[in-house]
């Protein structure tokens, strides 16, 4: 039930924020749409709703955001260098890495972070065995453990402290 209430508050404030008008009509339509959205789609979200309201997890989340932005900027400079260079210095390939995260939210954040990180793009997730298939633009090793050490390890350590 608390999941639906939090989703209703989020949907209502997003509606007010996007319409940017506090008339009576906008508020009534916003309440109706918020109730509809929260009762239709609340089953898709995670069971543990209040996971981020915790003094152990919250500072790691604020440590994670600047690290993520810094990796994004490095990825852009790296991609621009590979595109502009006349010989196209790429050795692409799809490698397999191992992950130890279990929850859906953690896996989603890990896959999105790896897509915006320099040199990697997530292709598929095998959730039962805990494997990720990653398209790597400059393949250095082909083994599973060495690739895990090079690609996943840095962010998995932080995401395990946030979402597990």
């Amino acid at each position, binding site marked *: 039930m608390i999941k639906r209430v939090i989703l209703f508050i989020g949907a209502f404030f997003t509606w007010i*924020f*996007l319409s940017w008008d506090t008339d009576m009509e906008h508020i009534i339509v916003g309440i109706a749409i918020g109730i509809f959205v929260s009762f239709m789609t609340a089953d898709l979200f995670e069971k543990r709703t209040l996971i981020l309201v915790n003094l152990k997890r919250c500072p790691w989340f604020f440590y994670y955001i600047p690290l993520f932005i810094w990796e994004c900027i490095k990825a852009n400079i790296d991609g621009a260098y590979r*595109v502009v260079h006349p010989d196209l210095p790429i050795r692409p390939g799809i490698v*397999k890495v191992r992950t130890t995260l279990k929850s859906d939210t953690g896996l989603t954040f890990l896959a999105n972070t790896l897509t915006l990180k320099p040199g990697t793009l997530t292709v598929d997730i095998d959730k039962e065995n805990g494997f990720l298939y990653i398209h790597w633009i400059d393949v250095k090793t082909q083994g599973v453990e060495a690739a895990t050490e090079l690609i996943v390890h840095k962010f998995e350590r932080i995401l395990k402290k946030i979402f597990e």
Partner: protein
Amino acid sequence: MNEIFGLIFIIVGVAFDFFGCLGLVRLPDVYNRLHSSIKCVTLGTSSILFGLFLFKGFNEAGLKALLCILFLILTAPVTAHVLSRSAHKSGVKLWEKSVCDKYSEDKDALS
């Protein structure tokens, strides 16, 4: 002063957009094109929106631009993931100078 910083952010964003679209033309196969363009275009458009926020300040258009940055960073990697997986499942081969393809090996072993 804010407008000068806004112009700098907009110029950097347009430059990264341009490099991403150049990669869309130059690189050899679907995965490499997706790889180059989704990163550069996502951060470049976020930088343009942040420049719009610096121009407009805390009013309607500026706060909507901040909301738009959050939305873009959450959804652009999902489209890249869906497109690359569907391209691999619909039978697009990798580039002929590629090193390895563990995904098709595992799919052949399963079926």
